[in-house]
């Protein structure tokens, strides 16, 4: 059967989360020459309808992007037990669904540490997208990382909103970033999908640093992008297709952390000049300590608090 993907409403070119998946899709198509059927729903109602349409027409596996689709995938997967579903960022307990989740707190810890090292004001900021536990997990990890490097650091945190639109509101992102800059922060991490574009723009405009998320976003504003907390959703999508092709696709929960290469920080030409050798060494050290378990990063979602 042909593979398919359903992006979430931010669309596949959000330069972030969905685009990451899209990169995985592209890579798979390039390698295997198999076209992946793509669908971008425009509203809640179309998610389920779109999934059904794909399932009815025999597409499998179907990768669904984002927690928003959890309930729709759950319903459709029940009705089509022979179709393989992979959901990214959501957990569904069904025999034909693979749930891929990431340890965002680990990656966020790493970039939080880097942010604190780069900060001259000892204040860093975090702009979240929609106010949900998943995004708080980013923020909490980031805060721990910053405090690990400088226990006196101030970590400002804002959420863009409480609806899905919060992942696609650069104007507000930019205003939130400016607000944080005016309160002293000089590095801002955006875990906010398309909203991040506004955050990076604001950092560029004000000569401050920003940290990208999900995809490697260092290229968006070279020179002021300190790094990106990459979340390898591309890999998740690619693996699903590849495994399905090989017959090794399995249902169940897949958890990807630093150790598995599921999350990481990004260093490339665009930000090489911003990261000194010393900083790099320190970050690598922290990274290996997390992998080895010497540093325990508290997961917000384990108890819905950020006490560590």
């Amino acid at each position, binding site marked *: 059967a042909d593979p398919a993907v359903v992006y979430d409403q931010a*669309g596949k070119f959000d330069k972030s989360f969905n685009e990451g998946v899209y990169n995985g899709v592209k890579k798979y198509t390039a390698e295997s020459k198999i076209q992946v059927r793509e669908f971008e729903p425009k509203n809640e109602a179309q998610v389920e309808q779109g999934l059904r349409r794909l399932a009815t027409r025999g597409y499998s596996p179907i990768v669904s992007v984002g927690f928003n689709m959890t309930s729709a995938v759950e319903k459709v997967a029940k009705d089509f037990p022979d179709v393989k579903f992979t959901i990214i960022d959501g957990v569904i307990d069904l025999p034909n669904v693979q749930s891929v989740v990431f340890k965002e707190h680990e990656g966020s810890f790493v970039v939080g540490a880097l942010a604190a090292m780069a900060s001259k004001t000892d204040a860093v900021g975090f702009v979240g997208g929609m106010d949900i536990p998943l995004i708080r997990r980013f923020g909490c990890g980031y805060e721990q990382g910053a405090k690990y490097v400088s226990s006196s650091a101030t970590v400002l945190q804002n959420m863009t909103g409480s609806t899905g639109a919060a992942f696609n509101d*650069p*104007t507000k992102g930019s*205003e939130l970033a400016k*607000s944080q800059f005016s309160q002293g922060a000089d590095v801002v991490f955006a875990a906010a999908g398309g909203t991040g*574009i506004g955050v990076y723009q604001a950092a560029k405009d004000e000569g401050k640093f920003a940290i990208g998320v999900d995809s490697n976003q260092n290229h968006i504003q070279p020179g002021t992008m300190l790094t990106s907390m990459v979340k390898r959703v591309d890999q998740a999508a690619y693996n699903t297709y590849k495994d399905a092709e090989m017959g090794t696709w399995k249902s169940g929960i897949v958890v990807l952390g630093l150790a598995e290469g599921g999350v990481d920080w990004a260093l490339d030409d665009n930000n090489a000049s911003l990261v000194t050798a010393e900083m790099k060494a320190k970050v690598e050290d922290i990274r290996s300590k997390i992998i080895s378990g010497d540093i325990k990063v508290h997961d917000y979602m384990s108890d819905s608090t950020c006490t560590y």
Partner: protein
Amino acid sequence: MFETLILMLDATMRVSAPLILAALAGLYAERSGIVDIGLEGKILGSAFAAAAGAAVYGSAWIGLGFGVLASVFLAMIHGFACITHRGDHIVSGVAINTIVAGLTVTLSMNWFSMGGQTPTLSGDARFLSVTLPFADALADVPVIGLIYSELLSGHNILVYLAFLMVPATYWAIYKTRFGLRLRAVGENPHAVDTAGISVAFVRYRALIICGILCGIAGAYLSTAHNAGFLKDMSAGKGYMALAALIFGKWRPVPVLFACLLFGFLDALAIRMQGVEIAGIGEVPVQAIEVLPYVLTVLLLAGFIGKAVGPKAIGRPYVKERA
């Protein structure tokens, strides 16, 4: 505290600039007797056209040109419906808003294949902030320095333009021949007609100005405040501008203050996020977000004084009953 206030006012200027432009646009339309709830659509249409133009030609000015053209075109559709064909102004406005909401996304998907966005603009494709002379030098002077360098300096040219449009509009409305005719046509089009002036021509010109100003507002959103077009990026600004227009009783200076108030509330909402207020606790962001809307409703309810608009507003000018 003072610094925080200045920074909030700074944000207020940024946020209220498009509101001011749109509200003044509405002022021209409504003073001429044309209700324009299509401000929203014109802003959105212009935001898209400006971003698309800027992206393709790499120049913010060209983008602005496209934005203005698109917005004027929409204003002319409104005119064609309301002036030439005596259509219902509100229905026409709703139609334009709806068409634009769909069309911008459709076209940008098709032209740029970026999920309904345009490419991110940078460099010359965007209006960047202008530092006023001596801003840096004066930055350290107490109070004045802060006001000058933080609040007044460092905005992009369209913000200054928006604020300049207020006295310009005042002058145009009250001191010129066009202004006299514009006001007259909104009050009693028959009087204007019998004075030998074409009602339709005055109204069309008013709508062209309305289109131009909305065009600048839209271009501001996508090429100055942001760096590209996004689906529904006007986010109700047209409606807020209309509310500000009523708030300001169709007069330029009070309209300015209404816009500043709304802008300030917006800036406040961002600041207030997660802040605990003694005695109340954390104010839900939504509560601050709805403030402008609630204020508008209260105003309309006559609690803040009766807003009486131009007399002939919303009524098609009909000479001959067929």
